[in-house]
């Protein structure tokens, strides 16, 4: 088991965002975390990345307790987050943004080369000299994923990658994630767009008000009437 979260509690700014979440991600898996706004999905990713302080519980990655680590060390272990809203460095070029991604290597060997990133997202090569801030939303999402690839991810955590993207762009981004996973990369995908997330992943957890309320195969959840009613809204 690559990532093992046991009974995790997180509260910050007076809000109990996670109230005993347990979940597991195996190597090579692609797992979705779905749930409505405020369910604690982003908090879960930020707790793994140590961007918010974790309360009780365990977050174990490849045998290392991440609760005892700090954000930049977690990144250097290969737990790389593609944050909500992309967070591209707007004043730097596309190429510089990708080079910044290498900081997360921290001595580990690279897994993807620049040409691997360009092969997956040809538009980034075309625009390598353009400032990150001038890219469209979809291109910025590709750049954010490419930046994480440069840091040799062991597991890629994505926070709402489809947010603000057109359906066509979402297709492209999700297709790229599917290809990365097919090549063996472990992916944890937080999405409000539950329909898309369940299509793409093999397993999923449903979060509601800080608790895991359902878990199972994505296919089964997508067919489940109660899930359809609550999260897939017709």
């Amino acid at each position: 088991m690559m990532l093992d979260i046991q009974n995790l509690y997180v509260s910050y700014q007076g809000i109990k965002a996670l109230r005993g979440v347990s979940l597991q991600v195996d190597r090579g898996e692609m797992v979705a975390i779905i749930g409505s706004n405020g369910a604690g999905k982003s908090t879960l990713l930020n707790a793994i990345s140590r961007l918010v302080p974790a309360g009780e519980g365990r977050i174990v990655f490849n045998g290392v307790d991440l609760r005892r680590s700090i954000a930049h060390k977690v990144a250097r272990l290969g737990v790389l987050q593609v944050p909500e809203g992309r967070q591209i460095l707007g004043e730097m070029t596309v190429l510089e943004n990708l080079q910044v991604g290498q900081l997360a290597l921290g001595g580990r060997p690279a897994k993807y080369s620049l040409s691997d990133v360009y092969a997956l997202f040809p538009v980034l090569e075309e625009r390598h000299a353009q400032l990150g801030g001038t890219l469209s939303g979809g291109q910025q999402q590709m750049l954010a994923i490419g930046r994480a690839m440069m840091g040799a991810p062991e597991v890629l955590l994505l926070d709402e990658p489809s947010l603000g993207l057109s359906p066509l762009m979402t297709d492209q981004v999700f297709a790229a994630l599917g290809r990365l996973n097919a090549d063996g990369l472990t992916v944890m995908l937080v999405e409000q767009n539950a329909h898309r997330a369940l299509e793409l992943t093999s397993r999923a957890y449903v979060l509601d008000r800080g608790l895991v309320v359902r878990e199972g195969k994505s296919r089964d959840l997508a067919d489940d009437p109660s899930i359809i009613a609550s999260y897939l809204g017709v």
Partner: protein
Amino acid sequence: MIHFYYSYQPVIDFFLLSLGFAYSQQIALRAGVFSIGTAGFAALGGYLVAILATRTEVPMWVIIPAGAAIGALGGYVLSIPLARLRGAFVAIATLAFVKVIIALALYFEDLTGGAIGVTNIPRIMDTWSLALMALLVIYVNWSIGRTTLGRIFAALAQDESVAASLGVSIRRYHMIGFMVSGAIGGLFGGLQSLYVYNIEPNAFGFAFVVTILTVVVLGGRTTLLGPIMGAGIMAILPEVARPLADNRTMVNGIIMILVITFLPRGVGDTIVDAVRHRWRQRRGASRPQKQEVADAVASD
């Protein structure tokens, strides 16, 4: 030209000195640290250089780097207790640091001359040597902008948590920012001592802090041109406003308010942005349009 140089030499020298202090201030801001400790670093360098130059036979090529070194050391020490602070709290804590340095300068009278300060410092700096040192600092800042360090600073200044999630140790790079700011501040504090004959604690007080901050805010907080424009304006402004006699400070204030209101990024940064924008437009115009259209359709 020679005539121009002699009549405006003090203005040029003032410009060069404030340029150095402004880069010390700016590099901290570029690293995402809202430090206003430059006055304290300048006092550390200024006093060390003044004391060594008046009391010892240490050669100048050792004394001047020593000023930079003590500034960097000051930055390192200061960064340790401040590691947990952010934003305005860093500003207040670094202002307190400046006050502590001034208090120490007043207290250790035997060494620093107390309120009178250090006098009869040999004057070895002139316009040309100041210009050379300013060029050195510009070169260092330019190089930082072109290396990984510059990218890390830019990432930190934009969003700390993103920088951390990219594997950047916030504590470590804030410390480096403090040290570079300290080294430049200490260096120019020392150069100032070797230019003005005597230094006293009040020279590094609140007025100094405000002046340097003003230079960077007026000029720009991110580009190399920023401090040059800011220091230039601050040097020329009193000359231009001279006929206004007693109303000069008021006019200074009004001009600053106008610049900050209408060019919030500072004169230098605004110019650099405009030039870059035009350059990009010109390049963009010669690019094939097909891909643009495809992207526009595909993106949101």
